[in-house]
């Protein structure tokens, strides 16, 4: 059994176990959930430490045939692209379980759903089989809808539930149609990704440009809706604003990266020619995310909606990195996916804490909170600075590399300039404004009774901040791993424009050197 199976298996097993625990054993339920996610996190750290950088191929692989007649198998493995994502997912999963103290009613059901969500998405990231990749993500996605519907907050909860359900279901189903079309048109009778990647490198088997141009938009917009690609982003701010804290942390932090990961893992290597044709479209939609949603974020009066919008804006930078189709651009994109996972979980966790104590997140009513909540306030300040791209935090590394990568593409220069303005200036404006109105200034009398987080409540935030710091100060830990496996993607998807020699299709696959 691969360690990856245990990483996603423990939370799922714990979910099954909780079904048989009576609902009034609240301590046991919480303990099981925390223990399972903690074990999963420790295993993920262990896996990350034992990952051998620079080794070609997948590590910790395991393959069990599932449906022979269709070529579906349970196949997990990690390379540089997903090793960091799994680590990030497992840490955020534990942090989300820690932050679940705010749930007071129907705890058993909540923890079952939370564990399914955690286990499902970790399995999806580890999966090297297109079917399981989709299947496990869908398994993780459905609990999100239910959690927002039942435990959500705010007056527009029902509307938000239906909106997010419909949006994300459409996205997921579009991607499913794309994946099935990919499977049948390749005609390799397997859902196995490494096998398919090898299969298309033979010029006989490569898809025609027409077929690629049919499937690529399905994947781009299907996955794009899941990642809140502009103009399909409107579910995200309201959905996160209405979601209970742990759900928002897990979804914004981990689940949302699934679509991006899908684009990099499936669309780029299997549909390389179409990817080149769609670069401009992706880049301009990314500007929609960065600039348009950035302006929307500036107008927000509610802290959660502001964070939700800023998280949508950050997705634009990742899309820009993918559009650059260059080594450092995509490496940066994967890096931000990981950094933003920590960051989104951190900010939603902190704002959730404030909401639970203060009962509101309207920035007009808050103010001066740093005096009453020194720890939470400082952590929020650091999170906001990380969100603006302050050096020292992991986000800076990712954003800088993405901008370098995008600038290296002559066709993307205009877009890059706009993106840098949007990300640094607009992002800076709304983040500092939010900090000023909530944390500084006069403290309204009604907040005099607020209590700062106790030691145990600080654990998840410290953990997330530490991760941001470690990868911000030692980016090599990730970039070396990512870069090694981005290289073969680039040689497939970006010929001369990336400054590399055009690759004749009969040359041996690039990762054999």
């Amino acid at each position: 059994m691969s360690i990856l199976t245990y990483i996603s298996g423990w939370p799922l097993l714990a979910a099954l176990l909780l079904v048989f625990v009576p609902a009034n054993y609240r301590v046991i339920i919480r303990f099981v959930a925390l223990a399972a996610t903690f074990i999963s996190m420790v295993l993920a750290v262990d896996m990350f430490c034992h990952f051998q950088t620079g080794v070609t191929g997948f590590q910790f692989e395991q393959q069990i045939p599932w449906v022979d007649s269709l070529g579906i198998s349970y196949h997990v493995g990690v390379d540089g692209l997903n090793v960091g994502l799994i680590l990030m997912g497992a840490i955020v999963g534990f942090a989300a379980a820690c932050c679940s103290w705010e749930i007071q009613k129907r705890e058993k059901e909540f923890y079952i759903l939370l564990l399914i969500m955690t286990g499902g998405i970790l399995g999806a990231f580890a999966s090297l089989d297109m079917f399981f990749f989709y299947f496990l993500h869908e398994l993780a996605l459905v609990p999100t809808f239910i959690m927002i519907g039942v435990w959500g907050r705010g007056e527009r909860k029902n509307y938000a539930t239906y909106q997010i359900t419909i949006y994300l279901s459409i996205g997921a189903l579009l991607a499913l149609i794309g994946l099935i079309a990919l499977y049948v048109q390749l005609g390799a009778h397997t859902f196995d990704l490494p096998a398919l990647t090898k299969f298309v490198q033979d010029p006989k088997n490569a898809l025609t440009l027409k077929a690629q141009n049919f499937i690529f938009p399905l994947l781009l917009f299907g996955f794009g809706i899941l990642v809140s690609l502009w103009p399909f982003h409107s579910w995200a701010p309201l959905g996160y604003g209405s979601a209970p804290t742990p759900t928002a942390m897990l979804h914004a932090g981990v689940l949302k990266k699934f679509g991006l990961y899908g684009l990099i893992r499936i669309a780029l290597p299997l549909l390389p020619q179409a990817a080149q044709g769609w670069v401009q479209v992706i880049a301009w939609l990314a500007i929609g995310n960065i600039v348009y949603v950035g302006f929307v974020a500036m107008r927000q009066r509610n802290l959660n909606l502001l964070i939700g919008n800023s998280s949508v804006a950050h997705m634009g930078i990742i899309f820009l990195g993918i559009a650059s189709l260059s080594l450092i651009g995509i490496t940066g994109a994967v890096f931000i996916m990981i950094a933003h996972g920590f960051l989104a979980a951190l900010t939603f966790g902190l704002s959730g804490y404030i909401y639970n104590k203060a009962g509101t997140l309207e920035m007009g009513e808050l103010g001066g909170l740093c005096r009453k909540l020194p720890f939470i306030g400082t952590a929020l300040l650091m999170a906001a600075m990380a969100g603006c791209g302050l050096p020292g935090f992991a986000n800076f590394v990712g954003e800088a590399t993405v901008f370098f990568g995008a600038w290296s593409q002559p066709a993307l220069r205009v877009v890059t300039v706009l993106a840098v303005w949007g990300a640094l200036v607009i992002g800076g404006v709304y983040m500092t404004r939010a900090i000023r109105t909530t944390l500084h200034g006069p403290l309204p009398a009604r907040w005099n009774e607020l209590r700062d987080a106790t030691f145990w409540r600080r654990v998840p935030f410290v953990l997330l901040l530490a991760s941001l710091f470690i990868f911000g100060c030692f980016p090599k830990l990730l970039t070396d791993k990512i870069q090694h496996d981005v290289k073969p993607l680039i040689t497939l998807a970006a010929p001369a424009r990336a400054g590399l020699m055009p690759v004749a299709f009969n040359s041996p696959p690039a990762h054999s050197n």
Partner: protein
Amino acid sequence: MNASLMSLEISVLGLGLVLMLADLFMAADRRKFLAYAAIAALGGLLLASFSGFGSCSLTGTAFHGMFVEDALAVFFKRFFILAAILVLFLAAEFSDRLSAGIGEYYSLTVFALAGMLFAASANNFTMLFVAIELITITFYVLTSFQRNRLASLEAGVKYLILGALSSAFLVFGIALIWGTTGKLNFTELAAVAAQHADQKIFLLGVLLVLVGLGFKIAAFPFQIWAPDVYQGAPTPTTAFLAVGSKAAGFVLLLRVLFVALPTVAAQWVTLLIIISAITILYGNLCAIPQRNLKRLLGYSSIAHAGYLLLGVAALAGGAHTSTAGGAAILYYLAGYLFTVLAAFAVITLVVRDGDSEDVSVLAGLNQRSPLLAATMTIAMASLAGLPPLAGFFGKFLLLKSVIELGPGNPGYYCLAFTALAGVVISLYYYFGVIRAIYFSREAADLSPIEISGSAKFCLWICLAGIFWLGIFPNTVLNLATDAAKVLGG
């Protein structure tokens, strides 16, 4: 004549007669046990079908080719027997709500099962007609069985009138086919159908046969009866109608289109695509405003007929190369059986006499009985096609069979997108049911619901089936693929 091939059908008919006679000697308060006796007997037949004894291990034809025993027939026979067993569990729970004729209710259910078994093996238009009439006429009675309930009688009359009308179309169609070709046997017809493929009278005959079968599966535009009849009929009847009668319609449709008339089916790809698309949209859109649970499931069953027609459309376009569409239909039906019967089992247990069948009756169900609440939730999630449940893998197979043909005919892509729209719409009303269970504020009645051991057993079978088909699809998929090979030519 090779009567040993029909030993299963003969046993089931015998069982029906025995039940009817035994009813005369049973005290009124012990008639419930007739249902358990019938379940035991059918369970034995089901086991025998897997053990190598009995007719399910044989292949061949009987009655001069009218009756055929092949992998497809065997798949459906097991399906029908399993459905009947679960329906009899529901009927046993329901029997205290029938004022009279409890024994007859069980034996009529068994007779309907016999009709379905014959339908699975029909290889001749005469056999097809007899099987359909055996099913439909027993259902007229089963539908209006609650004589003191106006809704039940109304449903019976509606079903009788529309059913008779569709039978008339069917007979007329058969007559036209026979008049132009001189053949009634499917295998013989396949040999001559190509010569008649451009003859208008012949095609009209085929069209009329499809009208008759479209009524059985409740496809657009022959779906009008479904919501009313589903709502009015006693719940176990509705369940059997939704699973057994629909599946019987599908096996006959598959045989007529792909065994008897493959050339015509290939010509009518566009028609099948359009019917499938409209059925999906009609069922899903009309289900949105429904408040009555059985009526909602009636519309949802129309939508599911539409999904199943995806497979028929795929077979029509590609039966000569791949029978993936056929395998997908069989797999989907297997998942549908457990899912729908689970939903109707919950309705049977929750809705007591005199209660309304409004969705609000489910309010607070998770406090009244967590098992029932969980079963209903899982059934709705499976109908909506969420993993890791049976409905997801079934929909995946159907979509795959359609998308496979997309490059040759863009209509199939349109169909796949329509199905996608249908799935998204359906989330709304399936989640509406789940919402009613867990989140309604005003739960008037919070008394716990007593569930008998046998009902629990039935619920657990359904749940196990839903998860088994969703997580371990291999076994059933291989059976379905073997069965669907009959349809390729």
